[in-house]
């Protein structure tokens, strides 16, 4: 890994840290993306509008970055459509069952020393490792 790449990862990570800090400071909320997305699927309400705006902000941020650096969005995973569809289903189902994903448990939870979030993070990293090894075993190295 190049030094340049480490720098980008640290800066991007720090920006995420600033974003979740602003959410906490102004709105008093955890920035958990799976939770925000899942709750936004409920009946629309005035009190829940912030979730739609958060998602709109993410999509707009993606469009902004894609216009500057399309190379940041290249998917070289080699994963096929079938695998991606199954993966999406598992991510949606699992994050609602487990009350969070990488942002809510991984970033916000660990930062406040939540045992639940630490256990969740260890679990999804471990099973992510298993899944990657399974793909390597059955489909070969695609990266």
């Amino acid at each position, binding site marked *: *890994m190049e030094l340049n790449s480490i720098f980008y990862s640290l800066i991007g990570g720090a920006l995420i840290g600033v974003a979740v800090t602003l959410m906490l400071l102004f709105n008093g909320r955890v920035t958990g993306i*799976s939770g925000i997305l899942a709750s936004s699927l409920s009946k629309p309400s005035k009190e829940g509008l912030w979730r739609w705006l958060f998602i709109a902000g993410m999509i707009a941020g993606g469009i902004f970055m894609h216009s500057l650096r399309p190379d940041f969005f290249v998917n070289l995973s080699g994963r096929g459509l079938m695998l*991606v569809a199954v993966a*999406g289903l598992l991510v949606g189902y699992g994050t609602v069952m487990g009350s969070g994903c990488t942002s809510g448990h991984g970033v916000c939870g660990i930062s406040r020393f939540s045992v639940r979030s630490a256990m969740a993070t260890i679990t999804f990293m471990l099973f992510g490792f298993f899944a990657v090894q399974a793909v390597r075993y059955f489909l070969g190295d695609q990266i």
Partner: protein
Amino acid sequence: MKSNLSKQNAVSFVVGFLFAIGLAVSGMTQPQKVIGFLNPWDWDPSLLFVMLGAVGIHLISYPLVKRRSSPLLDTKWHIPTRKDVTARLILGSALFGIGWGLAGFCPGPALTSLASGDVRTVLFVGAMIFGMLLFRKTEPHLKLRD
């Protein structure tokens, strides 16, 4: 409180925007980097540095912000307080982890990557939303303790 609600909405948009920029800059919108992190035989440590950056900032900012009695635009905090590690938490996280490893996407980078127009990303997000709705439908039959 009416004006505060619209200010909260504006903050949410800005936070989503910044979060997405952070994800793209950090490399997390490239699934091969996430998959590489989960593969010790050809390890890509990017995700480690993303977590170091994000947690490093929030580890410091969280206790500072929580010194206040309430957030700037609301009367109370909305922070999870549960401490119990349940079978539901672990099983859900395991299923999420499998999906994460299979595609190299978790919810944030997937939403951010919609901008690429890549059919795999659109399919992933659609399946993810379907999965979220499916959990709600099947939850009453699972007999999991909350």
